């Protein structure tokens, strides 16, 4: 069970495909990453990049059919999750690995009291009695900062605001002190002041409980302050992976650079046109040969439309999927010097 190098999750060459009318959609096509204990990984990408499917695969939540994990290893604390019987997956989910979703209204059952929904988790996984589970539910609500938890625990989801519902979701996810927490766009549906509260809460809980976190988002601002390392996904592939500081400072992939530049920065800018990545994200069912980003990329050369790019190692922890990764990295390093 125990692991010398402290790795809690390793995903290797994961491929999750979906059978659709338009053919096979390679939603996730050869993703690898490692997460150490207590570490936070950010997965950044636009809609359709495969960031959510990656994590649904880790949780074995891919609907089959039409989806299928066709290749790769998912190892959680020494356990091979991909081949684990469903019965045992259920013992992992909720207890040792938990997930928070974007929309807290659709992920809570509107017909059940919050207490019922929270108690279910610990009764199932920790064998709590009703009384213990109820007390634990109240404690958890207090931990996530819900005022008057003794009263609120018997409310229904609609009686909570969006931010409070997300707190309930976090309370539920953390009920069994999971070792891995996957947060899929947990603040996208929330207002900025509430987003700040929730991000702060996740940070606090992480440092108290030592939970490892995977943070999925399209917002580079959110990952900048929350994560130790980041992978950037595009068209089902990892385009770049690096420690957070390095990725923001010296990106080695034109797509990452474009994303960083297209975020308006209130601090320094004079109202000039914002950098924009031209064109649209590709149709994953009909990917062109060569680099999937080639037709939107500002430094495309002939080779980009013909050959699939290599995953170039820049340094020990920094990789980029680009024919010109080293040059791009050198340029951004030069630009910052």
């Amino acid at each position, binding site marked *: 069970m125990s692991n010398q190098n402290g790795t809690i999750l390793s995903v290797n060459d994961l491929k999750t495909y979906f059978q659709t009318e338009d053919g096979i959609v390679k939603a996730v096509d050869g993703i690898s990453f490692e997460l150490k204990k207590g570490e936070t990984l950010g997965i950044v990408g636009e809609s359709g990049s495969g960031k959510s499917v990656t994590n649904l695969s880790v949780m074995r939540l891919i609907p089959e059919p039409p989806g299928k994990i066709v290749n790769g290893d998912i190892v959680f604390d020494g356990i091979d999750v991909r081949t684990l019987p469903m019965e045992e997956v259920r013992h992992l989910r909720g207890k040792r690995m938990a997930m928070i979703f974007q929309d807290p209204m659709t992920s809570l059952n509107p017909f059940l009291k919050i207490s019922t929904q929270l108690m279910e988790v610990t009764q199932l996984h920790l064998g709590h009695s009703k009384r213990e589970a109820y007390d634990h539910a109240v404690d958890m609500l207090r931990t996530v900062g819900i005022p008057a938890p003794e009263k609120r625990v018997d409310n229904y989801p609609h009686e909570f605001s969006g931010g409070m519902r997300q707190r309930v979701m976090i309370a539920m996810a953390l009920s069994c002190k999971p070792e891995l927490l996957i947060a899929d766009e947990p603040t996208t549906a929330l207002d*900025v*002041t509430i987003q700040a*509260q929730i991000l*702060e809460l996740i940070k606090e809980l992480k440092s108290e409980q030592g939970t490892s976190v995977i943070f999925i988002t399209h917002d*580079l601002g959110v990952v*900048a302050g929350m994560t130790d390392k980041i992978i950037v996904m595009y068209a089902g592939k990892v385009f770049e992976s690096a420690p957070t500081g390095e990725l923001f400072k010296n990106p080695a992939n034109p797509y990452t650079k474009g994303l960083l530049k*297209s975020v308006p920065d*209130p601090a320094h800018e004079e109202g000039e046109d914002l*950098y924009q990545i031209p064109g649209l994200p590709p149709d994953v069912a009909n990917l062109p040969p060569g680099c999937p980003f080639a037709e939107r990329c500002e430094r495309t050369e002939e080779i980009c439309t013909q050959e699939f790019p290599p995953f170039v190692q820049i340094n020990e922890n920094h990789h980029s999927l680009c024919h010109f990764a080293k040059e791009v990295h050198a340029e951004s390093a030069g630009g910052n010097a």
Partner: protein
Amino acid sequence: MSETNGNNLISLEDLKVYFDLGGGGFFDKITGGSGEKRIVKAVDGVTFDIKEGETLGLVGESGCGKSTLGKALLRLTPITGGRAMYRGKDIAHLRDSDMREQRKHLQMIFQDPYASLNPRMTVGNIIGEPIRNFGLADGKSVEKMVQDLMETVGLSRRFIKRYPHEFSGGQRQRIGIARALALDPEFIVADEPISALDVSIQAQIMNLMNELQKEKNLTYLFISHDLRAVRHVSDRVAVMYLGEIVELAEGKDIYSEPLHPYSKALISAVPVPDPEIEAERRRVILTGDVPSPINPPTGCHFHTRCPYAIDDCKTTEPKLVEIKPRHYSSCIRIDADNPNIEEVAG
């Protein structure tokens, strides 16, 4: 409020939009209700001007009334009190037939490019509808106008026979913009036009809106909860909280030195895409949620969440006053001599 030189396109004076939720009647009393009339003061006395060719950004959290304010400007929701002037005409009190004439000049872009386009109409009909409705053209010439508009917003002319579902979110938003432009308006309310789009597409739409503004001398009210986007596109920014404007200033001023405690908190809550800045930043984390706009807090609406609130804040209603040149804020604890709330509070 600001200098009234001739080129104000839109002027709001003490604009109010209330929604009556009922209550307070005989049956409420006998069924044990509170007996209090429940009124949502979505927009509660808003005064500002928008100049020709300007973009005014309007930011605030959900439920603050920013969308209702935008709709009221086009009279898409009944106005309860005050005045909404467009070129000297009070939109609130125009007859319906006169209002219809004005709609040519006042248009809207919506947040959700999926819900705001009729799925059973072709792009040609969606963009052409206002042109036909107002009799600007007929027959073949409508098609020509539609194709020109499509080109203006960066869509291929060949797509004219296609349906909305054949387009991506960003392209649909372009269709919505083309429709808003069809009548050659002067003023456009853009209600969260980029919130539903991917990051790389958001930049495209913001740039398109900027170009169109320069080309056609458009005036925008840009409503959004995304402060980074608002800062980027706006000349001036108004911050709204529970139906009231709490701060109004030029974009750069409001970001470099926000004066109102709520603006301060709002701006500090925006994550910066730079890990080094993030690591050093001190955030003002507000406690609690935005209170219900049904019977909002007395005095300053923000006092229940304000870290600097004193007893007076519960009773005194603050007014929007000029604290620094062209920088207005509504907080009773600051004034022109003591503009910094942190220093005032000690």
